[in-house]
């Protein structure tokens, strides 16, 4: 088991390091720079979408969808970060508490 733990950790660290180890001159290429600027936007939005709609390898609509919807509204109305997060937690928590969504 230690082998699994350490090999997994080593690989994950290497992946984190490889991006930082690439020389900055590589980013001076305008094409590369544009792609690198856009990468986290696509990845993080994909992550948010999956965290909102995916469960066990399929798409589903549960308490997370209205919760993130309410939070988006708060965000759009320029609510603070804490308010955005709490509105999502509150919506999902309450819907589940009253058995209105899973």
């Amino acid at each position, binding site marked *: 088991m230690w082998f699994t733990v350490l090999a997994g950790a080593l690989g994950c660290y290497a992946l984190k390091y490889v991006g930082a180890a690439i020389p900055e001159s590589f980013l001076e290429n305008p094409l590369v720079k544009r792609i690198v600027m856009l990468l986290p936007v696509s990845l993080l939005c994909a*992550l948010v979408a999956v965290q909102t709609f995916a469960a066990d390898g399929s798409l589903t609509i549960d308490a997370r969808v209205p919760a993130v919807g309410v939070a988006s509204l708060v965000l759009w109305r320029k609510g603070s970060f804490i308010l955005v997060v709490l509105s999502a937690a509150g919506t*999902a928590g309450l819907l589940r508490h009253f058995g209105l969504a899973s």
Partner: protein
Amino acid sequence: MTSTTASWESTRSDILRKALSIGVAVAIYGVSFGALGSTTGLSVPQTQALSLLMFTGASQFALVSTIASGGTALTAIAASWLLGTRNAAYSLRMSPVLKVTGARKLLASHLTIDESTAMGLAQDEKLFEGNASRLAFWSTGLSVFVLWNVATFIGAITVKAIGDPKALGLDAAIAAGLFALVWPQIKGRHTLTAAIGGALIALLLTPVLPAGIPVLASAVVAIVIGWSWSKQVDV
């Protein structure tokens, strides 16, 4: 949102408050991870080692879940690497922002995860000569690292989660928090297309591909947009 007229003091306390709240939200999942780890055949030190050394939640859950479902060591390792691949894109993006060398570079790499990257990029890169972005990255990385590890330990030794993260709505809260951090990065047609395209690709692929790959596949959207954008500029 932080405006350019805000003082460094107010910007700093705003960033630190956010960093702490992200750490707290993520920590509840840390307790779940600790509990899961120590009930699926990992010892407490092994579970803790994952939080200390791997320190990327999705990979940790993937490794432990693979073992729990009877997978081999190699499939568990591969699953953790696959989920960790997006961190390479993050560290590449953060490197010109952080401007670190030597030991600090090694440490910054270790702290490069979804939350620290999203926080670092949510700040205006020019604000206080980049200090706002750097503070956001480091404070979030350290806050999550400390709280995630403490939480893992609590979960691993008590072998039960403190409350169900889902009952507290934390799964939705983490999604909403990340969305709030990506929001300021979406300014203009290209970033908007990268955001919507990335989300759609990931959702379309979710039913057909194993967890982790759909999110990773969204990188293709960024590459295609970056490519066509530069062609337009060249013309």
